[in-house]
């Protein structure tokens, strides 16, 4: 798993006050730390700890992830379109690796 890839999907445009659905998918092994490899050596835990989304600088979604979450976590949530601005998606894992994706939402009306 050397390749980091994240896919975020949301409408590029929405009317003011409209509820928009946002979907975020990221590539991550979410290794629990409970498994052993073929030689009986423990595979170290490697999971995403935190997923946060800021809309126009304001937090709109946050989630703590645990070892119970499957690999390649998929999260969908909704928010209200208030003003045109950037949505910043941030995933941070327990090795301190951070993946950030930025998307722009244009609000009309």
């Amino acid at each position, binding site marked *: *798993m*050397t*390749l980091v*890839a994240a*896919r975020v*999907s949301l409408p590029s445009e929405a009317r003011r006050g409209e509820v928009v659905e946002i*979907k975020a*998918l*990221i*590539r991550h092994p*979410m290794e629990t730390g409970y498994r052993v490899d073929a030689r009986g050596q423990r595979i170290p835990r490697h999971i995403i700890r935190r997923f946060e989304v800021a809309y126009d600088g304001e937090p709109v979604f946050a989630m703590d992830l645990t070892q119970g979450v*499957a*690999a*390649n976590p*998929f999260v*969908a949530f909704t928010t209200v379109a208030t003003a045109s601005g950037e949505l910043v998606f941030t995933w941070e894992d327990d090795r301190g690796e951070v993946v950030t994706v930025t998307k722009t939402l244009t609000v009309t009306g």
Partner: protein
Amino acid sequence: MIAGRIAAVALMIAGAAAGATAAEPLPSGTSYLSEGLRTQQLDEAANPGMLWVGEGARLWELPQGPAGRSCTSCHGAAADAMRGVATRYPAVDAPSGDLLNLEGRINRCRTRHQEAEAFAYESDELLGLTAFVARQSLGMPVRVETGGAAAPHYDAGRAFFHRRQGQLNLSCAHCHVDNAGRPLRGDTISHGLANGYPAYRLEWQALGSLHRRLRSCSFGVRAVQHGYGSPQYLALELYLAARAEGVPVETPAIRR
């Protein structure tokens, strides 16, 4: 008497061809998924296999080898050049006479035209590029060539499919023909079609090739597991594609 014999022969031929050229296509493995998983498969934003397809799209544009040629350099945009290609594979490569699946074709392209090293089978790179190429045929019906140079491979695949093997002494057909659609422990037995591969299997929590799936099948009946890209699995892949005639390509499918 003679007429009767001819009729009997005709019946046998019809019977032999029935598996490959049935008028009604067999149901895809997707029909045995739960509603939720089906929805997830159809939604590009939710289907985890699309992570690999995205990687494949990046590799398609990436210059490789000493000549610095990318896939685009020869083929152009994948959406046009690769449309429908996956429906025809596995196919015989004319210059070498080898039976190649999509993975094999991509690697042949790399060594022959890009002068680059072949990707390892089951590497993220090869899975990504294969899934990306197959994705360009989304929804198009599978139709492989089984005659001509492909005929011996097709016959070998057909024989493999119907031969009892392993400690459980089962052939592929015992499950995937005789009992397809019926429950096996917690799952439903599929018709053994490969129209969704490389597929995201929940058991693997990753995208995997058809040959990885076939190795699991071989393991399941306690038979010899053949290698990735082995002639046995390639021939079987051709036979499975012939069985899947008319079934739409669904790569990357979600499978349990």
